[in-house]
């Protein structure tokens, strides 16, 4: 799939924002007043920024508002609705923290849960697609949620738990990559089932339907070379997990220094892995074009 910057930024940024808000909602770190304001400002900033960026991806933005209408069937619509509900639910809690030094504990937890559910629904936009075997499995929601929680943990200096989360996430990510490779190759769908001609024999494209470009080729037949993939996976792995863990351990005594550093590494790594998430994803339509 075409790795559109707006969508990569959207998922990474809103994941981070909701991750931060989720941790804040647990009341730990117990920030108040100005520091709470800064934290919530950043949390809202990343979450809303991400959501706005997703609007950039729309070819017909004037109808964006209609995306709230189809929550009964559409994960994208659910995500839109949930993100608004979540942001509204978190708001009173945040206001309590910032301005009134009060903690609406239950509301906070509900807000945190909603943050998780929102990111879950984002992940389901991808995970639901049977057309993309690499996405259409449990790893997708698990990874999205774990990325969110780890990012939030780093953001909120939860060094101890962050190390364990990053280790778990690192392992999961590697498993997901391997699983994805496997699914991309070993699924029932191929040029033979796409054309129905597989029953005769081995099918190959001899002439494309058009020599000109089109939306499908740009959007769904994106290809990255295997050698670039391996390089990027390495970069993503080192940046998202290895370096943050090292940074956290190296600066174990000064978490306020180590955690932000870890976070920066981590975010770069997440961007790389998210780029791969799209770029590596092979869509069923690619079968028609022999790509």
């Amino acid at each position: 799939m075409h790795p559109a910057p707006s969508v990569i930024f959207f998922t990474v940024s809103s994941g981070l924002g909701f991750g931060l808000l989720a941790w804040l909602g647990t009341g730990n770190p117990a920030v108040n007043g100005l520091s709470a304001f800064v934290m919530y400002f950043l949390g809202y900033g990343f979450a809303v920024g991400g959501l706005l960026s997703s609007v950039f991806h729309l070819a017909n933005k004037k109808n964006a508002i209609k995306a709230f209408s189809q929550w009964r069937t559409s994960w994208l619509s659910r995500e839109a609705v949930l993100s608004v509900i979540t942001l509204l639910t978190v708001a009173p809690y945040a206001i309590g923290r910032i301005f009134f030094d009060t903690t609406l504990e239950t509301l906070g937890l509900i807000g945190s849960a909603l943050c998780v559910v929102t990111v879950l629904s984002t992940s389901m936009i991808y995970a639901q697609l049977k057309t993309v075997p690499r996405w259409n499995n449990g790893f997708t929601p698990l990874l999205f949620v774990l990325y969110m929680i780890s990012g939030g943990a780093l953001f909120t200096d939860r060094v101890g738990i962050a190390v364990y989360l990053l280790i778990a996430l690192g392992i999961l990510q590697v498993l997901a990559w391997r699983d994805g490779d496997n699914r991309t190759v070993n699924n029932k769908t191929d040029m033979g089932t796409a054309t129905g001609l597989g029953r005769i024999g081995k099918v190959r494209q001899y002439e494309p339907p058009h020599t000109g470009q089109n939306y499908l080729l740009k959007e769904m037949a994106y290809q990255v070379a295997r050698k670039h993939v391996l390089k990027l996976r390495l970069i993503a792995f080192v940046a998202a997990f290895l370096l943050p863990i090292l940074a956290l351990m190296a600066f174990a005594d000064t978490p306020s220094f180590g955690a932000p550093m870890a976070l920066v590494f981590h975010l770069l790594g997440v961007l790389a892995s998210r780029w791969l998430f799209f770029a590596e994803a092979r869509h069923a339509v690619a079968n028609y074009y022999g790509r």
Partner: protein
Amino acid sequence: MTTLPTQTDKKLGLVIDLDTCVGCHGCVTSCKGWNTQNYGVPLSDKDAYGDPSGTFLNRVHSYEVQPDTGGAAQTIHFPRSCLHCEDAPCVTVCPTGASYKREEDGIVLVNENDCMGCGLCAWACPYGARELDALAGVMKKCTLCVDRIYNENLPEEDRIPACVRTCPAGARHFGDLGDPNSDVSKLVAERGGMDLMPELGTKPVNKYLPPRPKDTLDCSQSLEPVATEAKGFLGWLDKALEKL
């Protein structure tokens, strides 16, 4: 609402005969012509006289199949457009309600006034049947020529999709696949019409008729000579002429 109808009154769709399609692309441009002028925004072309990239609702691929049974490779021309799936994932994923499947005839349409151009429906469609128009920013797809098939401004015989009307080889058939007695249903039954990617559970309405077996001539057959050389042949000839 993007909830799929539990059942449609009819299942209108196309039956495409892969044994007969010669790959002329007639259906491609007649579709483009009709739909540029009719339903919704025109199908645009970017960089039309440079390195072009345009919107089409129907495309014809060309494949080669190397038969498992050996023998020469075969060439098959393969038109691809929306299959108007019963279980259309493109509809349920649509966040705006722009995509819908009609209860009356099962046609899957995009209401362009509602579409926000997110592209998710195209991601959900396994068949590459949806193309986002780059100029208008809305999703385009085969409408099954909904603006022809009921159109009282057209003579009755023309109330069929543009691509079906134009197909020179007669490789495209239109009708109600929900009615087992319709011509198209009978054709599907007779010729073993198939679904594309049935494993994805979309339950396409459109069916493809598989190519008939090729290169089946029995090469042990040959003619019995009446004579082996010219002289004998002329003898035979005289006798044969007598009988005329």
